[in-house]
C-alpha cells in the first residue's frame, strides 16, 4: 500500500501537463497603485509572447516577474512595458520592485502560465500524504 501511494505521488510530481494551445501574443495593461496590481492575476499559455504595459496611478512602482527575472519601472504618467515569452508553465509572483511605501514588500500579483497544475499537484500530494499517515503509524506499531 505504501509503495502504491509512493508511486502515485511520484506520478503526480512527474507526469507532464497536457500540451497547451497554439502560442499567442498577449497584451496586458496593468495598473499599479499602493499596494496592488490591477488586474492582479494574469493568465497565459506556455509559449505565448506576453507584453505587460505597467501604468502607475500614484508613486513610482516596478513590476518584477518571478521565475522569468524580467522587470519594468513606471512613474505616474509614464508607462513602461516589458515583453517575454512564457516558456515555463506554472504560477509566478509579480512583485513591485521599487520601494513604494510601507506595504511595498507585499505588493504582489501573479502570472499563471497554463492551467494551475501546481495547485492541483500540491493538493493531490497533500491528499496522498493524509492517506499515507495512518499506514506509517501502523508500520511503526508493528
Amino acid at each position, binding site marked *: 500500500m505504501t509503495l502504491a501511494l509512493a508511486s502515485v505521488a511520484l506520478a503526480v510530481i512527474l507526469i507532464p501537463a497536457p500540451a497547451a494551445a497554439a502560442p499567442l501574443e498577449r497584451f496586458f495593461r496593468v495598473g499599479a497603485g499602493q499596494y*496592488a496590481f490591477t488586474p492582479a492575476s494574469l493568465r497565459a499559455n506556455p509559449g505565448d509572447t506576453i507584453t505587460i504595459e505597467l501604468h502607475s496611478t500614484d508613486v513610482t512602482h516596478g513590476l518584477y516577474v518571478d521565475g522569468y527575472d524580467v522587470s519594468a519601472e513606471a512613474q505616474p504618467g509614464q508607462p513602461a512595458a516589458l515583453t517575454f515569452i512564457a516558456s515555463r508553465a506554472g504560477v509566478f509572483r509579480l512583485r513591485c520592485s521599487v520601494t513604494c511605501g510601507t*506595504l511595498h514588500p507585499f505588493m504582489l500579483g501573479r502570472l499563471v502560465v497554463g492551467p494551475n497544475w501546481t495547485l492541483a499537484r500540491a493538493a493531490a500530494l497533500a491528499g496522498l500524504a493524509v492517506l499515507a499517515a495512518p499506514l506509517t503509524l501502523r508500520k511503526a506499531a508493528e
Partner: protein
Amino acid sequence: MKRLALTRSPWLKAALKSRWPQFIAAALLLAGFLFVIVSGLLGTPVGSRNFGIIAVWILWWALLILAAVPLAGRGWCAVCPIPLAGDWLQRGALLGPSGRPPRGLNRRLPKALRNIWLQNGVFTLMALFSAVILTNPRVTALALAGMLAAAIGLSAVYERRAFCRAVCPVGGFIGLYAQAAPLELRVADTAVCAACASKACYNGSESGYGCPWGVFPAGLARNSTCGLCLECLRACPKDNIALNLRPFGGDLEKPAARLDEAFKAFLMLGAALAYAAILLGPWGGLKAAALAVGSPAWLAYAAAFLFICFGLLPGLFWLAVRLGQVFAAPRRRTARRSDFALAASALVPLGLMFWAAFSLSFVFANAVYVLNVFSDPLGWGWDLFGAAGLAWQPLLTSWGLPLQIGALVVGAFWAARVARRAAAQGGFHALPVTGYAFGLTLAMMGLLL
C-alpha cells in the same frame, strides 16, 4: 521513542553548564534589540530601509520560524534578550547566584495567569495591528520597548520570569510549536528526583537559580513550558538533567488536552491564513483595510479576523470532533469534553508548517534588504559594508514554491498522524479532524499557490 542524551558528552555538558556562551549570546542580542529600538525611533520611516524592520521581521523571523523553532523548540527563549535586564534586577547578579535573596516583591504569579490565555490575548492584540507593526519602524520600536518595559516591571513584582510565562506573545506560540521540535530537556531518572530533598532545580542552589519558568523538571512531559534556560542543569546536585535529541514531534506522541493551547493553535492558524490573504494576496483593498487602523474598513477587518480565529475555525473544529465522537466505535465512544483540546494537538504541526510556508513567500524575496540595512542601518546614507546601494533582487524564487508545497504537504501528513494518536487516546474517530486539517491545507495552498 529513542532519545540521544546530548549531555552525555562531557565537553558539551561543560559548555551547556557554563553561563558564558549563553550570556554572551543574550548580551549581544540585547545590544541588537536596543539598536532595533533606536533605529526604529531615529532611523528612516521607510520600512524596507530601516534596520529595525528588516532585522526583526525578515532576519529574526526567518531564523525563528524556519530554523530555531522547528529544530530547537524554545531555543530562542534560551538566548532571548528581553528577560535579561529583569533577571539582573531580580537576582542582583549577571551570572551565577550571588547568595543574596531575590530583590523586588517576589510574589507568586497568580494562578489565573499560569496558562497562556493572556499570551493569546496579547498576540491577538498585536495581530490586529500587525500590518502597521510589520511595516512601520516606529511602531515596531514602541512594541519592542513595551515588551522590554513589561518584562522589567513584572520582574520587580513577581518571582521568576513572569513576562515569559504569562505575557510574551512570541513565547506563547514558540511553546506551542516547541512540542514538534527534536530537542527536549528532561530528567534522566524520575526516581532520583523523587528521592531528592532539596529540589534544587526548582528552589535553586549555589550553582544554579531555581527554574525561572516555574517548572519542576521531574514533572516535565512537554516542551511548551520549559524555556531551555538550563538553570536546572546547573543547579541539580544529582546530575540528573538531560538535554535530549529525539524524533520530531516527540511531545505529540502522547498529546495533551489544554484549552488555552488549543485556542493558541486556532489563533496561529487563523493568523497564518489571514496574513497569507492580506499580505501575500493580490487584494489591495484588504491591505488598505489592515493598514488603516481605526477606520471602518479596519474595524471590519478586525471583526473578520477575530471571527475567523475564535469563531469559524474553533466552530468547524468542534463540529469535526463531534462528528468523530459520533463515528467512534461504540466501546470507545465517550464524548468527553477534553476531546476538543486533545484533538487540537493535530493543529500544532499543521500550524508550524503553515507559518513556514507563509514565511518562505517573503523572506527570500526580501533578503537583499538585510544587506542594505546592515550597510545603512538608519537610512541616513551610510554605506558601512558597500552594500547599501545593492539593487533589490529576489533570491531563490524558483525554490520558493516547491519548498512551500513541501511544507504544506508535510504539515497535512503530520497533522493526520497526530490526529490518529489523539483519537486513539481520546474517544473519537480521527477522520473528521484529519479532513479539517486537509481542508485548511487546501485553503492555504489556494492562497499561496
